[in-house]
């Protein structure tokens, strides 16, 4: 118990402290290294916590304020891991950006501080036991990234950030209303005060919660957190924000923030299901999921900006995961959990390579990016394999999850499969069609060679590959316990 709370302390404390420290020293030469160091220690703490949970099962800490179970601990580890690799990537990337003179000292400080702040917010989201605090942390995550999106101060960047700010603000406000309703229903059962918002208590008594109120609450929670997940038609902020910010931020936004929002959504769904004993929530989520898949897939066909394209693909994959959670059942849920994991790994890897590619060509326009295989094999093959992974080609992990989800779908909801098939097919064709010319062919004149950050890309792709071929036992057990929780 005690040491666990220490682990938690490190896990949450380190990013905060670093944020403070980097707010002053963020522009020094060694700042990126510090950034990496902090993220690394966060990751270590995350691993420690994971081991604890693996040993002792779910645990409460900090006076019921924190709750750690299989579901959120694996996301916590994932979050800290990806943030670490992103920090490694951003070292090279941001140095290049400074050489190009796109960011100055103050912005570097700001960037590093906010990066750590963002990580802190996400971890808080995951680990807190209090639904209200969950909401606060979510808002915090938004606020800490808004100004990172507009880091470059270009008109489009500011526009994107503004949309991000307003839309997510409004959305999150809806979520707060949902939370209020949740509290309203909960205090009938659990009495007033902080107890009534603790997830552990809520899930314990979810059977007694008032169904009408909860279904009402779910609408607002769905719209609120759905906005952050980037579900169609609440997604419009996402492509802008992801394409305009610095690439490391796009990587963590795509790879992590969406996951976190989905996590919140799923937590709420569990409560609602427990209360209403119906499949309404599931149906709603499936609807949103399918809509997102289709719209994203068809939007993919007409993209010109590379980062924008991949943010649409994030929408598509979040749609798949949402759909699977909505579908429920052992296979689908397992698939969805796996999907969240492998998607964030693969997608952030893709964004790393994309960042390098666009730096090499000084543009994000895809028709001006060519010949990556020859120009920089790591970037080229990394991008190619990343895309093959993301479109669900074995032996990468995403295939495994999609395999489970699709088969579960045709078992439990066969009528949805044609739409799913259509969406996946179109997305596949669209992405391949765009990526193929970029990686192949001769080196164009506007391409400048550069040293790419090898480690993050390779690490991520290796993990995705391994998970595709062999899921270690502990991961498996986690997933199964998580599936049990979400039943």
């Amino acid at each position: 118990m005690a040491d666990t709370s220490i682990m938690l302390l490190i896990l949450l404390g380190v990013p905060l402290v670093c944020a403070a420290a980097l707010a002053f020293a963020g522009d020094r030469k060694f700042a990126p290294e510090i950034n990496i160091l902090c993220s690394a220690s966060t990751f270590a703490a995350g691993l420690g916590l994971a081991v604890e949970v693996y040993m002792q099962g779910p645990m409460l800490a900090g006076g019921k304020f924190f709750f750690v179970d299989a579901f959120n601990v694996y996301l916590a580890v994932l979050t800290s891991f990806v943030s670490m690799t992103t920090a490694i990537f951003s070292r090279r990337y941001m140095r290049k950006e400074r050489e190009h003179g796109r960011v100055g000292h103050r912005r570097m400080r700001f960037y590093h501080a906010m990066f750590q702040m963002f990580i802190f917010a996400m971890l808080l989201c995951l680990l807190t036991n209090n639904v209200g605090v969950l909401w606060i942390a979510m808002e915090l995550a938004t606020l800490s990234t808004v100004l990172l999106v507009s880091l470059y101060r270009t008109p489009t960047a500011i526009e994107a950030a503004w949309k991000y700010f307003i839309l997510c603000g409004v959305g999150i406000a809806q979520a707060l209303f949902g939370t209020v309703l949740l509290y309203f229903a909960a205090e009938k059962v659990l009495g007033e005060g902080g107890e009534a918002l603790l997830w552990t208590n809520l899930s314990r008594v979810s059977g007694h919660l008032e169904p009408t109120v909860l279904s009402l609450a779910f609408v607002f929670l769905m719209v609120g957190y759905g906005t952050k997940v980037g579900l169609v038609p609440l997604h419009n902020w996402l492509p802008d924000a992801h394409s305009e910010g610095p690439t490391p931020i796009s990587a963590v936004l795509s790879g992590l923030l969406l996951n976190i929002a989905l996590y919140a959504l799923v937590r709420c769904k569990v409560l609602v299901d427990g209360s209403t004993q119906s499949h309404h929530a599931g149906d709603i989520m499936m609807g949103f999921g399918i809509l997102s898949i289709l719209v994203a897939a068809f939007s993919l066909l007409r993209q010109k900006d590379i980062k924008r394209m991949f943010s649409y693909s994030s929408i598509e994959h979040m749609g798949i995961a949402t759909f699977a959670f909505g579908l429920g059942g052992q296979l689908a849920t397992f698939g969805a959990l796996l999907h969240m994991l492998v998607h964030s790994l693969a997608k952030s890897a893709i964004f790393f390579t994309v960042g390098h590619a666009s730096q090499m060509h000084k543009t994000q326009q895809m028709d001006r990016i060519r010949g990556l295989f020859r120009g920089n094999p790591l970037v080229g093959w990394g991008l190619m394999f990343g895309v093959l992974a993301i479109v669900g080609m074995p032996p990468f992990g995403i295939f495994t999850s999609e395999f489970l989800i699709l088969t579960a779908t045709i078992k439990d909801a066969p009528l949805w499969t044609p739409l799913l098939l259509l969406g996946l097919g179109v997305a596949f064709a669209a992405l391949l069609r765009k990526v193929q010319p970029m990686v192949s062919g001769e080196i164009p004149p506007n391409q400048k060679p550069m040293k790419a950050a090898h480690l993050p890309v390779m690490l991520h792709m290796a993990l995705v590959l391994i998970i595709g071929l062999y899921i270690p036992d502990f991961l498996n057990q986690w997933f199964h316990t998580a599936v049990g929780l979400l039943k």
Partner: protein
Amino acid sequence: MELTTVAHINSFLAALVLLTAFGMLVQKRIYGLIHLFAWQGLFLSLNTAIVGYVAGKHHLYISSLLTLSLKVILLPYILHVLIHRLKIRKEVETIVNIPMTMLIGIALVIFSYHLTAPVRELSTLITRSTLAIALATVMIGLLMMITRRHAVTQIIGFLALENGLFFAATSATYGMPLVVELGVALDILIAAFIFGIFFFHIHTTFDSLDIEQMARLREED
């Protein structure tokens, strides 16, 4: 005093809140908007205090104080300063046909009343009847954000929406747990700073706060 009067006061304040909301919906002048917003915040904090007094929830005093300081004093002040700095006090924005907006607003009130009916059945609180008002305020805030095309007014709409939420919290339940209240307040504070920064950025980049021109990011044909 006995509960009925309290209920009356409470619903009276609720009515005022709704009124201010509608007022904001149709108010063209920025200063007018800010004042209306401040008034709304005042009614809100009053209401909170009363509820807290009746229900004997002392942490509601705190939150009422928070509201007072934040929404009645701080935010309007910041907005004032910004508008002064950015020299946009003269600006009067056109709103697309007011009667229509009003009608939609009324429709929203009815809708939210109809929506919260079951909840009202369940609740035992004296404040329960005001939940519909709260929801309506939220919706109207959203509607305001949709109809306005000026950054500041959008922000004000956003804050009005927050007010509605807060009002819901106090009316549906006797306020959220203190932690949450504080957190929300903190978030709003940060948000305030951020949109402050934004106003500068937008103004420097587009040399006006009209957000109509922020429509470049689109799936061009």
